[in-house]
Structure formats: C-alpha cells, structure tokens
C-alpha cells in the first residue's frame, strides 16, 4: 500500500509524471552511470515518448536530469538552453516503434573517448526502470542505492564485493550479474538500502580485476 505522498505528490515540473518527471529521473540515472558531466548527449525517444516529446518536454526533462536537476527543479523547462550555454551538444532522434514499453528512452553520454549508454522506461508517477546499461540487459528501479561493477568475466568477484559490503554492515537488497554484454565482460548490479560511503566505494573499485564502479543514488 502506498504513501499519502504518492497521492498528494510528487511535487514536479509538469505536464506529465511519466513523460516529464520520470524522464528527469532517467536522465539522472544516466548521468550517474557515466560519472560526470558529458560533452555530448544523444537521446533516442521511442513510442509515445517519441510522438509527444515536444509537448511533454521529455527532451528537456532528460537533459535536465543529466545536468543533475530534479523532477521539481524549475530549470527543467530551460534545460536545453542551459546545456547549450555549457557547450554540451544535444541530439534527439525519434523512433516510432516501442522498445520494451511505450515510454522508452536510450540515452548516450560521451566525453573525450568515453561513453555510456542506458535504456530506460518510465512507468508512471515518476517511477522508472533501467533495462540496459553499457549494453548489458538489467533491471534497476532507482528505488535503492545502486552500485554498478563492470569487470572481465572471472570467478570470485561477487564474493569479493559482498564481503566488503558485509564487513561494513551494508545490507544488500537485490543483486544481479549480467553477462550478455559485449566481449566477455560482466556487469554486477548491487542494490542496497543504505547510503554507501565514498571509502567503501573506493574499496570496491580497488578489488583486483575490477574495470569500473559507478554509484547511482536512489531517486528521492
């Protein structure tokens, strides 16, 4: 059963909780999966997202999220202009067909030689689900603090990461390892209730064999 603030709320920039507020959340997750402000943002909008994005400000909303704004930030409306002032190149493409869901976006962030791509859907009421990160198929809700660990496939990684978290008394809510990505890499997704301190994340990054660790804070 929900909270009263699911009914009287969220406080958000309109016009649509799925096409605007949820889109900001997708942008926020993409930014955290990339780890910094990108130089380029490429967005592909599918299905209903594509058909109605101008009137719903979906493009603005995603860019606002990538810039670190929230669904209630007044800047959402001006996000395209703010990105331009910051010298960030934004491109939008539209696909008529649905992918996963009627409200789906592919968000590609790049800077220098680095790039990250996520595919996420907006479920309504601002809730989202991330379906792909770095080409791995996964499922992240953003309701938990989430650690993404990528590494060349090898035994023992899960144990090493869970040991570090256990030693810090951090309780794991969900965990998933995806191997369907390119090359023979794996992506471990760990969702936890608590906030993870920086030094613990550093310990996880220092695990031998680890390629990259990203931390995605739960959506408020």
């Amino acid at each position, binding site marked *: *059963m*929900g*909270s*009263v*603030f*699911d*009914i*009287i*709320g*969220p*406080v*958000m*920039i*309109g*016009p*649509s*909780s799925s096409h*605007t*507020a949820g889109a900001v959340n997708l942008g926020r997750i993409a930014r955290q999966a990339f780890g910094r402000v990108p130089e380029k943002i490429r967005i592909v909008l599918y299905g*209903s997202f*594509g*058909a*109605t*994005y*101008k*009137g*719903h*400000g979906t493009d*603005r909303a995603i860019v606002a999220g990538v810039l670190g704004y929230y669904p*209630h930030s*007044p800047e*959402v*409306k001006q996000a395209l202009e703010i990105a331009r002032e910051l010298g960030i190149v934004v491109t*939008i493409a*539209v696909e008529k067909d649905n992918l996963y869901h009627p409200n789906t976006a592919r968000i590609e962030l790049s800077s220098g030689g680095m790039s990250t791509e996520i595919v996420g859907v907006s479920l*309504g*009421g601002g809730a989202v689900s991330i379906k792909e990160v770095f080409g791995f198929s996964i499922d992240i809700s953003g309701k938990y603090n989430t650690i993404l660990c990528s590494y060349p496939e090898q035994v023992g990684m899960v144990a090493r990461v869970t040991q570090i978290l256990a030693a810090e008394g951090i309780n794991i809510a969900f965990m998933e390892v995806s191997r369907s990505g390119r090359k023979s890499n794996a992506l471990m997704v760990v969702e936890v209730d608590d906030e993870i301190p920086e030094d613990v994340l550093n310990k996880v990054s220092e695990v031998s064999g680890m390629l990259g660790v990203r931390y995605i804070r739960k959506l408020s």
Partner: protein
Amino acid sequence: MALDAIQNFQQLVETALENHCTISEVVLEYEMESTEKSRVELLEQMLGNWRVMKNSVLEGMAKQEATMGGLVKGSASIVEAAIAAKRISEDRLSKTVLRALAVAELNASMGLIVAAPTAGSCGILPAVLVTAQEEKNYPDDKIVMSLFTAAGIGLVLAKNASIAGAEGGCQAECGSAASMAAGALTELAGGTVNQVAEAVALSLKNVLGLTCDPVGGLVEVPCIKRNSFLAVNAIVASDLALAGIRSVIPVDEVIGAMKETGELMPLALKETAQGGLAATPTGKVIGKKLQEETFEK
C-alpha cells in the same frame, strides 16, 4: 488505532467513528505507522506541498505564455477579465474555475505543481482549497489536515479502482481528484465523518464513464478546462453532503462501479489519443500537426 493497510472507505469511516476522530487523523496515523516518520515530519512535508499548491495558483494566474503544445493560452486571465468587467459574477464558483484553469495551464507549460493525484488533474485540489481558505479563513494547518483526508480517499481509489487515465479513463484522474477535494472540503467545513463519505460517493457518481481522450496525446485538451469543471463537481458534492443529502449507493459500491466502468472502457478512450475528442476531425488535424512538428525537425 493505527491501520496497517487501508482497505476501503467504510474501514476509514469506522476507524474514525470508533476513535471519535476525523478521517484525516486516521490517515495521518496510518502514514506514521507505515513510514515510521513522526507526526511533525509528515505535517511539515504536507505543509510544503500545500505551499507549492498555493504558489501554483499564483504562478498560473501570472503566466502569459502558451502551453508547450501551444493549444491553450491565458484561459485564467480571460476569466479574470470577465469577472473584473462584471460579465460573470465574482463568487466561489468563478474563483474556483479561474484557479483550476490557472494551475492546470501552468502544468501544461512546465511549471511547478503538485500531482494530486496526477499531474493532469493537478488543478482541482488547489483551486477548491485556496478558494475555501479565502472564504472561510481556514488556517494552513487545518488545510494540511484536510489534505490527509484527500490522500486517504486517493489511496482507497488507487487500491480499489484506479488513479491512472491509461487504466481507468479520466474518471480515474480528474474524477478521483474531484472526490478527494469533495471529501477534504467537507471535513474542513466541519462535516461529520459520514458526510465526508457521502461527499465522496456523490462526487464519484457524477464522473463515472468520463473518458481520457487527450488531443495529440498532450495534457492540454480537454484536460485544462476539465480541471475547472471537476473542481465545481467537488463543491456541489460537498454542499449536498453538508446539507444532509445521502447517496443511495454507498461509497465503496460507487468505487466498485468506477473500477468496473474503467475496465469496460475501450482502450481508445484510455489515454491512447485514438478515440473521443482526440479522434474528432479537429482533434485529428491538431494531432497530425503536432506529429509533423515532432518528426520533421
């Protein structure tokens, strides 16, 4: 007395009667129990939302530019001017209408609103409550409590019917908002717990079958003006309940009928922009134009 789940409206009513308290008190206790947050914390959070609501009325009134899809512009100022020129009377009705238009238009222009229960129906509660506060000088903390009543009604509807246009048509969005506002208003005016239930039932009976048929798929036509009509529904329902009129069909049965009606409604009338107003000759021309602007850029 705290409930660990809200099952239906009757349960809210009985719990309030047993404890000699208001429905808002029962809902607040439920929220404290389920979130483990303190009363003060929850009241403050709701006060924050109420402040955003009040501000959305002011901002919506001041707004000049057209909505994102460009379909609606300045409807609140048009009504305001008509009131100033005494072409329509300045009363509770016209002020409520004006405010609902202002907030719903602000939403469609990417302004800051409180979804209540959804963004598309965000104008109804603020319009009704701001007007009530102006008329009766209710202090903010009383209004904040009435928002817990509104939320309780919304929780029952979300559980036993729907609050999503894509699932239940607009009866689920603007209809739910109207019944939430009707209940809140009735409690504010000092109505009994049973009168709150009657207000919800009376309000909902007059939204059953309301379709969701937004032109071009945008939250503009008919959504913005619909907010003003359904804000008035809330006032009528509350007045009738306070006067002592009772709904022949009890509130939980009306909610059951709302669920069934939503299920019977064809998909074309549930937010897909394939039927109703969206599929009229004019609706289609507008929809096509919006599509072209989107795809050729």
